[in-house]
């Protein structure tokens, strides 16, 4: 799998993401500066977390106008895979590549802690190493992760099975208290219609090493690397 990590000014989980991708795919991802416009030959484009443009004005708003976005749109149009995590998810929604928006956390505080995610479907290129309904742990760290979409969009996401992950309890219940940022229907991540674009708020890339407290996030990266590799590295 050839992965590229897009670096916008202010992005800060680019290194975390590179480490996770390298660990799981065996290949060093290419770091792409936001002013580059060429993503030829890339299988997976990753927009990592951080504070692009300081999260000023609106999270992801300015990054969504960056020169590289043209190439990312073209990649999407070719049916290429895209993973947006945290600020990356916000940027994908701002760019209109995923529906909805991420509002300020309901309690108006930055939330940095572990959460539990339920895998809503395991038949995508991203989640094939999990089971449907499986619950895994992931760190999260954001001030604006409160997923919002109008009712019609939510119905469509649910109806077409495009919800990727939900915030749940340890035992898999999507309760209000498990949904700390206040997201609509406990949504933590969603897919595009072709299931090739995934956006999520939490940071599975920070939990791929037992030393950091676990490997719950590893199957995500193992799965996508396996799906996109000609020579199966696993």
């Amino acid at each position: 799998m050839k992965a590229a990590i897009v670096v916008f000014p202010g992005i800060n989980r680019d290194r975390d993401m590179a480490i996770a991708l390298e660990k799981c795919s065996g290949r060093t991802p290419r770091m792409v500066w936001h002013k580059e416009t060429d993503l030829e030959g890339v299988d997976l484009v990753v927009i990592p977390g951080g504070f692009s443009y300081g999260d000023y004005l609106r999270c992801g708003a300015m990054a969504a106008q960056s020169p590289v976005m043209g190439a990312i749109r073209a990649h999407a149009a070719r049916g290429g895979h895209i993973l947006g995590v945290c600020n990356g998810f916000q940027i994908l929604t701002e760019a209109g590549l995923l529906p909805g928006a991420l509002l300020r956390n309901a309690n108006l505080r930055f939330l940095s802690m572990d959460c539990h995610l339920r895998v809503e479907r395991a038949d995508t290129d991203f989640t094939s190493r999990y089971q449907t309904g499986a619950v895994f742990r992931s760190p999260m760290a954001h001030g604006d992760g409160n997923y919002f979409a109008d009712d019609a969009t939510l119905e469509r996401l649910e109806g077409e099975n495009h919800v990727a992950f939900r915030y749940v309890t340890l035992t898999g219940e999507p309760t209000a208290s498990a949904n700390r940022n206040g997201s609509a229907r406990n949504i933590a991540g969603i897919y595009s219609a072709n299931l090739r674009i995934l956006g999520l708020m939490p940071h599975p890339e920070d939990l791929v090493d037992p030393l950091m407290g676990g490997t719950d996030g590893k199957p995500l990266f193992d799965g996508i690397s396996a799906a996109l590799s000609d020579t199966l590295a696993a």
Partner: protein
Amino acid sequence: MMKAVVTVMLKTGVLDPQGKAIGQALHGLGFGNVGEVRMGKVIEFELAEADPAKAKAQAEDMARKLLANTVIEGFKVEII
């Protein structure tokens, strides 16, 4: 030279936790007669443009492209 003021507010129907928190805090301070509170952003800038109509059209263009996210926000442009 014109001055543009773009006001961006969450659409009705989009929950506004900041507005809600401010409302609660105002009640807590004894301002019991305050109703629903909404909070938005205002962006002010100078525009090197002589024609107010053109200035307004430009500022609206900026609002649509960057200053507001029309999925969740509406906006209003004033030229002074």
